[in-house]
């Protein structure tokens, strides 16, 4: 049997990342790169972010950490110590990529900036992913997920228009960090492609603020071209003018997104036929609505009127009935699902294997858990993930096998607290 090929096999990445950047490492690791997560001897802060398995707040039990750190090795070392710095330099000398999300200036203050590391390894691609960038008046401002989403303009577009006195709502799920990571990775990969032809590494200075700022669809163009400011509308697109509400309640107390009612004449006629068969079409068969479908009417009083009738029809059915029925008529409507509800959807769960089992042998032989899986299917070099590393799980093997440190040297580092190893993994094992 031939080994499974990986898109990024042979690429070694040092990851010195917390919440802003850890997704970059995961996405590269799941496609075959070797990711060495360099973390403090007590672990990165994300190991103590909930939820936890069995609600046990232990550094190896964070499900948030698990989700963002698959396919990595953990090397726990105090990079502020002299020996720790040497360890980092030694590994960086033969690595392909270093990704980090510390405050600007932190690594250079340890003598571990790009100039230093690049002098040891001219082919090194180094990506710094910060809140606001390496220069400029906000360089030293502190950031976080919600700060990125606020400053980048995303929150301004998200929230309610029909619930009084409510603030803009941050889309939850770490998306300020995720957008930053996606762009950091996009830049990193482009630099690796450049290196394939030139042998030269480079430095990438990416920021969450700019990344979020360029991820707001029509918000900036609407202002730049028309000097109009979009406002937030419940569960649907921001707009410079109000649009019909798209969230419709179903008989099983869920919601479904109902939109583009008049975007396609055939779909409209089929919908009216379906509603007529159930005696709920009222006067939607009238010619004036067909005209609207022919002209792709977006907003009008007539459209609002039709919407109300459709809304009553939706309310008399379950979300699944409307979702399946409308999709069969080519309406792009979708149920507002809770994430776990996709585990029951046969298309994703069975046909597309979107929730693969990943082994967790630390809880016993054969123990596995289902994860949200691959965001893309590569025909030749498939996605494949292993569980997140325990704290310090690979410290010993990396120092010993990659750097050739003697057992005595490793013991000394352990005694001094320069490195740590996961419980159950000692130098004698």
């Amino acid at each position, binding site marked *: 049997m031939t080994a499974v*090929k990986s898109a990024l096999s042979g690429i070694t990445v040092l990851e010195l990342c917390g919440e802003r950047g850890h997704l970059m490492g995961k996405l590269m690791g799941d496609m075959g790169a070797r990711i060495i997560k360099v973390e403090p001897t007590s672990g990165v802060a994300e190991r103590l972010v909930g939820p936890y398995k069995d609600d046990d707040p232990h550094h190896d039990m964070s499900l948030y950490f698990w989700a963002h750190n698959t396919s990595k090795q953990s090397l726990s070392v105090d990079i502020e110590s002299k020996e720790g710095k040497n360890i980092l330099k030694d590994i960086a000398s033969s690595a392909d990529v270093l990704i980090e999300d510390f405050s600007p200036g932190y690594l250079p203050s340890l003598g571990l900036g790009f100039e230093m590391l690049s002098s040891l390894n001219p082919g090194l691609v180094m990506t710094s992913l910060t809140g606001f960038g390496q220069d400029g008046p906000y360089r030293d401002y502190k950031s976080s997920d919600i700060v990125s989403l606020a400053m980048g303009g995303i929150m301004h577009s998200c929230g309610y228009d029909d619930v009084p006195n409510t603030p803009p709502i941050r889309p939850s799920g770490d998306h300020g960090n995720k957008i930053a990571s996606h762009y950091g990775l996009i830049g990193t990969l482009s630099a690796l492609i450049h290196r394939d032809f030139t042998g030269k590494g480079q430095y990438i200075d990416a920021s969450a603020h700019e990344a979020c700022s360029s991820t707001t669809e029509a918000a900036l*163009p609407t202002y730049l071209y*028309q000097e109009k400011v979009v406002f937030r509308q419940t569960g649907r697109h921001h707009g410079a003018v109000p649009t019909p509400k798209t969230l419709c309640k179903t008989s099983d107390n869920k919601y479904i997104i109902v939109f583009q009612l008049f975007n396609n004449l055939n779909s409209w006629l089929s919908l009216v036929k379906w509603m007529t068969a159930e005696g709920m079409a009222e006067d939607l068969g009238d010619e004036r609505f067909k005209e609207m479908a022919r002209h792709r009417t977006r907003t009008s009083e007539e459209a609002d009127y039709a919407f109300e009738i459709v809304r009553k029809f939706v309310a008399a059915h379950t979300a699944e009935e409307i979702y399946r029925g409308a999709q069969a008529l080519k309406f792009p409507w979708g149920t507002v699902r809770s994430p776990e509800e996709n585990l029951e959807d046969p298309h994703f769960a069975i046909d597309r294997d979107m929730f693969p089992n990943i082994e967790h042998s630390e809880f016993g032989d054969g123990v596995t858990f289902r994860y949200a899986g691959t965001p893309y299917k590569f025909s030749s070099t498939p996605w494949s993930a292993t569980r997140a590393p325990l704290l310090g799980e690979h410290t010993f093997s990396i120092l010993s096998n990659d750097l050739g440190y003697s057992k005595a040297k490793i013991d000394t580092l352990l005694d001094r607290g320069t490195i740590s190893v996961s419980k159950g993994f000692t130098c004698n094992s």
Partner: protein
Amino acid sequence: MKPTDLPPLNRQNALEGVRVIDFTWIVAGPQCTRILGDFGAEVIKIESESNMDYTRGIPPVMGADSPNKSGLFNTLNRNKRSLTLNVMHPRGMEMLKDLISVSDVIVENFSSRVLEKWGLGYEEQKKIRPDIVYCSMSGFGHSGRDRDHVTWGPTAQALSGLTFMSGLPGQESAGWGFSYMDHSGGFYGAIAIQMALLHRNRTGEGQHLDLSQVEAGIGMTGTAVLDYTVNGRAFRRDGMPPGNRSPDRAIAPHNSYRCKGDDRWCVISVTCEEEWQALIRAMNNPEWSTDSKFSDMLSRYKNQNELDKNIESWTTLRTPHEVLEIFQNAGVPAGAVQTPPDRADIDPQLKHRRFLPEIEHAELGTTRVESIPMKMSETPWKLKRPSPLFGEHSPEIYTELLGVEEEELGKFYEEGIA
């Protein structure tokens, strides 16, 4: 020309020499190819009279007299060239096959059977160009029982769980105020294509990248999925979604706060004792802050309704940018909820980073477009051209790249091939 044909010293762009056939439209696909174009790939955007990019008509449109006046289209399609080609005409199909033979990447975000119907599925593409990288960006992917379902950004956000995860507890979903999954779907397209190019550089092998917009969204719900598969805890439960608070980290204050002005807001996220001390110092040590209810992180977290009211009584007297400055100068993670005018005209950081560079557009005049959000020391992105006018580059692509004679080119227009 393949990338390998270029002498290394002449390479100034990361994706120099990579030719991309771009069948994408609306937002998700163009977001993907915009990134490739920004890095120097040669992106050829293919449209036809009957299948024009829908975004050419999406607001803000500065005049209905032309397909070249949408501001959204301009920002999404800069650095691309436009080719009109009718694939339904046999000669058009021949031209497309010629183009495939000299290209590296094909990207499309049609529904899942369109290229197969044209007789141009991946297997056929490979016969023309064995190492082609083919990226399809459909809603549900190219396999499975629901592959024919159609999605727009909001559909993918709803089905994947992202819409549900955003909102105030006890209210319907606030969701996303734009097509986030069009942006993110585009990011995943650009990530996948570059990974495939790295693999091709090493092995000479191309492949099919089958992307699903919903699955890209599901991939971003990893923590919630694990909470269910490991702990049996559903996200659909009382008290969820969490609004602007932070239940998973159990930190407070972490919220949005009303500021001076009409519908103006700021955010604060305090993660540790040091930042808390800095916060109350910056507010001149208000009396309430000494209350034992706020003595440590856990008590602040438990009493955050009262905590938030106290903080808001301070922020309502100040503008979001005053709050930003006062707190950030004290070392507290805080931000203004910035409006589009804030970002375009006020934000000194975005100005310093040249976030909105200018470029001349033949019909829109001087325009400002969002930059790719990073600085690169060796291969900085370049804003080489504005979005293309419809069919602007057809003559040069047909004659220079595909070897069509001037005479035949005239016929292409007469017969509806170009």
